[in-house]
């Protein structure tokens, strides 16, 4: 039944078409392990005609990612799927360990999150994938809906419930086949199928604010088990006022990746790291930096002043 439901989600959502190469975002955790297992099973059973590849991102976190990658490598053998690993070290020349050494335990999830999103896309590009699918489950989506309301992030609120997000024509669409699957079901399925997965919290992740939303979702589920799907329904049917200003998605001038500003977040963060200004890009970016842009490489003096200004403005109480 679990399998049929996911098959139904894939069919009704038109997630894939025959002959495509699909990258499965694999972290070694329960969601992505179940996703890899079930994608392989359904692909064979219903003859989707997909070329499945496991895609992992190595953030370079000792004691966490190296262990979970071992799980992914075992999965590769178990499911006989090809595996591609991209690492922060080779993409950005920084591993999470070295980032944390520089900026400390605070705010490091920002780096990790921003870099991971891009790393997945780059990895998918390398293996010429047509689609990426990730193991986000219903609980994750509901949590994100609540988070985005609490943060007032209307653009993401609109996007986050879509089953396939496609930034534009040249971006690689991402989809979430487990979108309507409760976390509970996934855990039970992994347990009954005796799947080999890795479960440890990231050693750097306090993840405080999301923790509140998570606890709220779990409490809601206790009060009324349908709540999680009810929230997703709410997210799907809600309408946003037409006059609301939305960030326009463009491309980063430096790396070409999609971005809401002239420079994408990854490039700003990276610049901060390389120049020894790790606070750059965390919290509110000063307007000057966002509009005029440090991409103006001929005007180095200007960049310098902006950076200094940025540092002054980002006194500790300004961060966030």
């Amino acid at each position, binding site marked *: 039944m679990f399998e049929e439901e996911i098959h139904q989600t894939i069919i009704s959502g038109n997630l894939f078409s025959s002959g495509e190469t699909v990258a499965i975002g694999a972290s070694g955790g329960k969601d992505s392990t179940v996703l890899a297992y079930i994608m392989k099973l359904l692909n064979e059973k219903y003859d989707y005609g997909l070329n499945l590849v496991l895609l992992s991102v190595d953030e370079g976190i000792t004691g966490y990612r190296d262990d979970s990658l071992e799980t992914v490598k075992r999965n590769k053998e178990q499911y006989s799927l090809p595996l591609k690993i991209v690492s922060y070290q080779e993409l950005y020349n920084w591993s999470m360990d070295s980032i944390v050494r520089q900026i400390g335990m605070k705010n490091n999830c920002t780096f990790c999150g921003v870099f991971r999103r891009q790393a997945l896309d780059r990895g998918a590009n390398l293996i010429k994938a047509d689609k990426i699918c990730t193991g986000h489950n219903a609980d994750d989506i509901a949590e994100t809906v609540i988070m985005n309301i609490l943060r007032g992030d209307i653009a993401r609120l609109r996007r986050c419930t879509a089953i396939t997000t496609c930034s534009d024509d040249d971006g690689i669409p991402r989809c979430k086949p487990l979108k309507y699957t409760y976390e509970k079901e996934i855990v039970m399925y992994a347990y009954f199928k005796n799947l080999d997965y890795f479960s440890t919290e990231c050693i750097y992740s306090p993840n405080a604010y999301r923790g509140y939303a998570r606890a709220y979702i779990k409490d809601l589920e206790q009060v009324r088990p349908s709540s999680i799907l009810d929230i997703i329904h709410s997210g799907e049917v809600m309408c946003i006022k037409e006059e609301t200003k939305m960030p326009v998605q463009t491309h980063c001038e430096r790396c070409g990746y999609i971005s809401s500003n002239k420079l994408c977040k990854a490039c700003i963060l990276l610049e901060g790291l390389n120049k020894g200004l790790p606070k750059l890009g965390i919290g509110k970016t000063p307007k000057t930096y966002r509009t005029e842009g440090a991409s103006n490489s001929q005007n180095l003096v200007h960049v310098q002043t902006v950076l200094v200004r940025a540092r002054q403005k980002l006194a500790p109480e300004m961060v*966030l």
Partner: protein
Amino acid sequence: MCTSLEDGGLSYLKINNESYKATICMKCKVKSPQVVIRVNDAFCRECFLMYCTHKFRSAFGKSKIIRDGEKVLVAFSGGQASTAMLHLVKEGKSVRAQKKLRFVPGLIYVDEGAVLGHSNEDRQRIIDRISELFMDSGYEHHIIKLEQVFSEEFSDATLLSPNNAEVKTSQERLQQLFDSVQTITAKEQFLRTLRQQLISQVAKSQGYSKVIIGDTSSRLSVALLSSMAQGKGAHIAYDTSLIDDRYDQLLLIRPMREFTSKEVTMYNRFYGLNPLVVPTFTTKATSGASIDKLTETFVSGLQAEFPSTVSTIMRTGDKLSNGKVSMPDADGNTTSPCMLCLAPLDISVAESSALGSVRYTNQLAASRKSDSPTSSADNISASLERSCDLNSYDSSCCYSCQRLLEDMPQPKFLPGAVFSREQSRLAMKSYIEENLLS
């Protein structure tokens, strides 16, 4: 945007009280402050009260929704917010006011004691107090029992002296109906729906075109999240914006929506007003009793740590619209609103959706059940009967009200008004079909 919220640097957002001690009112810069609103804004008594009055009046002023001489019904529950709202209306009508409010207020109180399990003496005590208050105001006023949601019409006579025998039977009927509702979440939602329907019926029959209700921002931000969690995403704007226009020829207005519950409480305190405390379903319950209660605990907990929580939720809500949820159906008729909450239906969604996946799961479960020989035949027929019963509402209720009905095993006890509306809709539909065919 604020991606960095995801990590441990939260301490910067939190209140830092140690360094702050105001010695002077930030508005008049003369008197000593008596109340701190928002994070660090200290006001003296006079400036604070002026600020409240201004906020209340600007809610009307900005939108110009109420015309001179119009009859406006003030929904009064006796609680903090509506006590402050009534006082603000009275002040606005008094000779002292600089610019008088030009509408004609009337007051309404809905007695829900029957379903909240209050004793008859308690109910009478509260009603006596309310009627005393209403008499003092000198405005037209109505004290209605929730039982009257069963009556078909609201003439002056039935409003003033409802038939006692009738009230008694409908009280039993109402209690039976609420006892059959299995969860407190559903009870709260159902009570809200009935109350609003009753108020709107009375308002219409008494010639009011506007109703003002005292929802504060604290209350509305909870309502927003709670609505989301109950699948009402399409109706957030109805439930939380300044104007709710789902009712025919009647506007529900929320002039208190820029007030926090703290401001309202301080307002009442400064004027020496004593709000009534009417116990509800969850007054003494734990936080997990219902979705509303849980959400309230969640939001107030966050608000204590991050003082911008409520306002951020409200601003998010401001960006949502009612949208065009009610699409024309296959025949080209525009679909009618949900028969319970009267908001447009939100159930004509693509197959790939949360609702679609629920339907599919139910379908699978049903086919599994009929396959398995272990379940007794009685069980199946009972569940089938029930699902048929519910299916008849599936096309006429919104997603959230379908959830509500799932918690209510005997929908046949619903007030006649709900059904008569449904029947008249069906009659209208068949009439149209016949005419189109002929």
